[in-house]
C-alpha cells in the first residue's frame, strides 16, 4: 500500500502545474472564472482553451504521440484530472471527441476517418457530441427508434435524440441509429459519424431545473450520412459501444476529485457561515452531518483508488465503475443538499442575490439532481452491481 507518486509522476504533475499557471485564462487562478454568456463567445472561449491545451501538448495526453498525445500512463491521466480539478479548469468542450470518438477511431476507424477527424478533435477545431438517448430510450438504449435507411449512396436518418451535451456547439455527432430490426433489440444498430451542419439537423435547447442549458434535443429530419461515416460494421453498433467503454480508463475520476474539493469548500463555508454569532460547524447536527460526508467523500476517493489499483494490475477496468458512479453521484447530491440547509433561511437566495459564493451552492444543488440520472441512473447502477458483481439474476424485461 503506497499513496505516493513516483518521481517521474511527480515531475509530470509539476510540469502540468507550471504550464497551467502560465496558460490558464487571465485571472482564472485567482477566482475570476466567469464564462461568456453569449453562446458564440462561450464556444469560442472553450475551443480556444482546447487549442491552447493542444499546442501545449496537454490536449489529449493518453493519445499516441503521433496524434499529438503523450502516451500518458493511467496514473498520469489521474494526475491530469487532479490538477484540472485543483484549478477548476474550464470545461472540456470536446470531451466526447477526445475520450470517446478519437480513441475509438484509432482502434477501428477507417484510414479516411482517422485523417479526417482526429487532429481536428484534439485541436478543438471540431467539437463532437454524442447522439445516444431518445425520448423513449433512456435507461434502455436498445429501444432507440431513430432510423437510418439507405437510399442510393446516402443514408437518410430520421428521429430524435435527447440529452446531447454541447449539441448546440457541436460540429459532428457520434450517432446511434437503427438500420434493421434484429431479433434481439441490440442487433441492427449502427454507429454514424454525423455532420451536424446540415439542413436535416435541428438542435433545440433543454432547459434544466437549474435554469441552465447544457443539453439539447436533436431533431433529425432526413439528415444525411454516407457509408464512409459508419464506424464498425452495419448493424453491429452495439459491439462498437462495448469497445468504446473499454477506453473509459479513468472512469469517473474527475467527479471523485471534484467531490473531494467540494467537500473542502463546504467545510470552509460551514466554518465561515455564522448563525446567531456562531459558526454553524459548531452545531452538533451540522458537525455530525459533515463527519458523515467526510467518510463518504474520503470513501469515494479511496474506493476509486482501490479500483484503479485493480485496473492498473489487470490492464482494464472491471464492473466496479458502477460502484464508483453510484457512490459519487449520491454523495454529491447529499453534499449540496446539506450546503443549502446549512445556510438556513438564506439558503434559498439564488443567482446574484445568493448569500454566499456567487450562487455556487444553489446552482450545484439543483444540478446535482441530474447526477443520479445522467450517465446511467442509480437504479441501473444498482442492477449492474447486483448482476455483474454479485451474480444476481437478470432483471425483469432483460
Amino acid at each position, binding site marked *: 500500500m503506497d499513496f505516493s507518486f513516483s518521481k517521474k509522476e511527480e515531475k509530470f504533475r509539476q510540469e502540468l502545474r507550471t504550464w497551467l499557471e502560465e496558460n490558464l485564462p487571465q485571472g482564472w487562478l485567482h477566482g475570476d472564472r466567469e464564462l461568456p454568456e453569449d453562446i458564440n463567445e462561450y464556444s469560442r472561449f472553450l475551443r480556444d482553451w482546447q487549442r491552447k491545451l493542444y499546442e501545449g501538448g496537454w490536449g489529449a495526453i493518453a493519445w499516441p504521440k503521433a496524434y499529438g498525445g503523450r502516451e500518458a500512463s493511467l496514473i498520469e491521466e489521474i494526475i491530469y484530472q487532479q490538477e484540472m480539478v485543483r484549478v477548476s479548469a474550464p470545461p472540456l468542450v470536446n470531451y466526447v471527441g477526445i475520450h470517446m470518438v478519437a480513441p475509438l477511431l484509432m482502434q477501428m476507424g477507417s484510414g479516411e476517418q482517422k485523417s479526417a477527424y482526429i487532429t481536428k478533435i484534439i485541436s478543438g477545431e471540431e467539437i463532437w457530441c454524442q447522439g445516444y438517448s431518445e*425520448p423513449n430510450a433512456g435507461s434502455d438504449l436498445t*429501444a432507440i427508434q431513430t432510423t437510418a435507411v439507405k437510399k442510393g449512396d446516402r443514408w437518410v436518418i430520421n428521429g430524435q435524440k435527447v440529452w446531447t451535451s454541447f449539441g448546440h456547439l457541436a460540429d459532428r455527432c457520434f450517432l446511434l441509429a437503427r438500420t434493421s430490426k434484429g431479433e434481439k433489440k441490440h442487433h441492427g444498430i449502427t454507429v454514424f459519424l454525423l455532420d451536424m451542419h446540415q439542413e436535416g439537423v435541428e438542435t433545440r435547447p433543454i432547459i434544466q*431545473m437549474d435554469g441552465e442549458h447544457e443539453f439539447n434535443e436533436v431533431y433529425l429530419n432526413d439528415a444525411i450520412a454516407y457509408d464512409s461515416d459508419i464506424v464498425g460494421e452495419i448493424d453491429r453498433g452495439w459491439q462498437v459501444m462495448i469497445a468504446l467503454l473499454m477506453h473509459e480508463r479513468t472512469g469517473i475520476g474527475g467527479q471523485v476529485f471534484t467531490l473531494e474539493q467540494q467537500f473542502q469548500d463546504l467545510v470552509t463555508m460551514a466554518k465561515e457561515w455564522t448563525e446567531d454569532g456562531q459558526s454553524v460547524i459548531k452545531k452538533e447536527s451540522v458537525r455530525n452531518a459533515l463527519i458523515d460526508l467526510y467518510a463518504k467523500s474520503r470513501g469515494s476517493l479511496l474506493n476509486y483508488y482501490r479500483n484503479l489499483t485493480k485496473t492498473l494490475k489487470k490492464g482494464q477496468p472491471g464492473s466496479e465503475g458502477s460502484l464508483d458512479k453510484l457512490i459519487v453521484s449520491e454523495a454529491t447530491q447529499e453534499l449540496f443538499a446539506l450546503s443549502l*440547509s446549512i445556510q438556513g*433561511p438564506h439558503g434559498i437566495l439564488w443567482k446574484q442575490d445568493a448569500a454566499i459564493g456567487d450562487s455556487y451552492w444553489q446552482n450545484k444543488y439543483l444540478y446535482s*439532481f441530474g447526477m443520479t*440520472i445522467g450517465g446511467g441512473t442509480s437504479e441501473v447502477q444498482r442492477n449492474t452491481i447486483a448482476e455483474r458483481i454479485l451474480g444476481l439474476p437478470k432483471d*425483469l424485461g432483460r
Partner: protein
Amino acid sequence: MDFALNKEQELFGSYVRKYLTEQGTTNIARAFINGDRQRFDQAFQGLVELGYPSINVSEDYAGMGLGLLDMVLPLEEMGRSVLPGLFLETNSFAVPLIEKYGTEKQKQKYLPAIADGSLQISVAWIEPKGSYKASSIQVSGVEKGDDFVLNGVKSLVADVELADTFLVPIRTTSSSHEEGISLFLVDKAMIKNVTQQQSIDETRKLSQIHFEDVIVNKEQLLGELNEGDNILEEGLLSFNASICAIMVGCMAAIVDMAAEYAKIREQFGQPIGRFQAIKHAIANMKVDLELSRSLSYYANWAYDTAAEDRQESIFAGRIFIHNALQKAAAANVQIHGGIGFTEELDCHLYVKRARYYEHYLGSRESYYEKAAAALGW
C-alpha cells in the same frame, strides 16, 4: 370518533380544486415566474369569490368565522398547484393575531379588507444573514411623539408586490435579548426602498425592505409594546398548521404525477412502475403522504379546538411533513429520469418549493426545540 373532514369542508375543497384545475393548476405559477401576474390575479379573484380569504375572519368583521380546519383542503389544492401568493401569511399568520391582539381600530381597518380580498399581508421578519430569533432582530423603532421611527433592513420578505401591509417585528429597546421586540403593522405606502432578491423558488418573489426613517404611528403597534416575541410565537402556531396542509397538497400532487408516469413510461419493454425500485419508491411516498395528511388534519383540529397537545402536534407535524415532502420531491425527479430534471415538467417546482419551506419562518432546528419544549422534555 370521526377523524374525517365534514361534508362542507370536503365540498369547499372540491370547489377549489375544480377552480384551480380550470385555471391551469401549475400554469398559474409558471406564468407568475415569467413575470405574468395576470393569471395569478385572476386565480386569486376566483378564490376570493369562493370565499377563501374570509374563512377564518370572524363574523363581526365580515368573515365566515370558521377555523383552520376549514382551510385545510383549499390549502392542499394550493399546494398541488404550487400557487404563488400570500395566503399563509395573510390568513394563517396575520388574521389570528389581529383577531386576538388587534385594537378595534386595527380590526376594522384590516379584517374586512382581508375577508373581501382587497388586502394582503406579508411578514418582514428576518434580516440579512440573521435568524428568526428575537436576539437577531436589529431593525430599530425609536419612539417619537405618537410615532415610531424605523431604521434597518429586512430580508427575504415574500411578495412585496402582492402585499398591502407588513407584519414587522422591530427592536424597541436597546437590549439584544428577547424582551424588547414589538410587532408593527406597516402599510406599504410608508415604505419607499425595496430591492428584489432572487429565490430558488421563483413562485415567491422575495425582497429586502430598507427602512430609512420610516414613520409608523403607534396605532399600528399590534399587541403590547415589547411583547412582540410572544405574539410571533402565537402566530407560528396557526401558520405552521396551515403550512402542513399546503405541504401535504404538494406531496399529493407528487404522488399522483409519479404514479401516472410510472404507469405509462416504458423501458426494457415494461412500464417502469413494474420495477420495484420505482414501485416501492412511490409506495413509500404514498405512506409518507398519508401519515402527513393525518398529522396535518390533527394539527389543524388541535389548533381550532385549543387541544392540550396542539403545540407539539403542529411543530412535530411541520418537521415530519417537510422532511417527507423534501424526500418525495427529490424521488419524483429520480422517478421521472432525465425529463424530471428539466423545467418542462413540474417536478422541479416541488423541489424548489420544498426547499423554500425548509426554514421559512423558523429553522427546522428551532421547531425541534419548540416541539420538545411543548412536550415538557
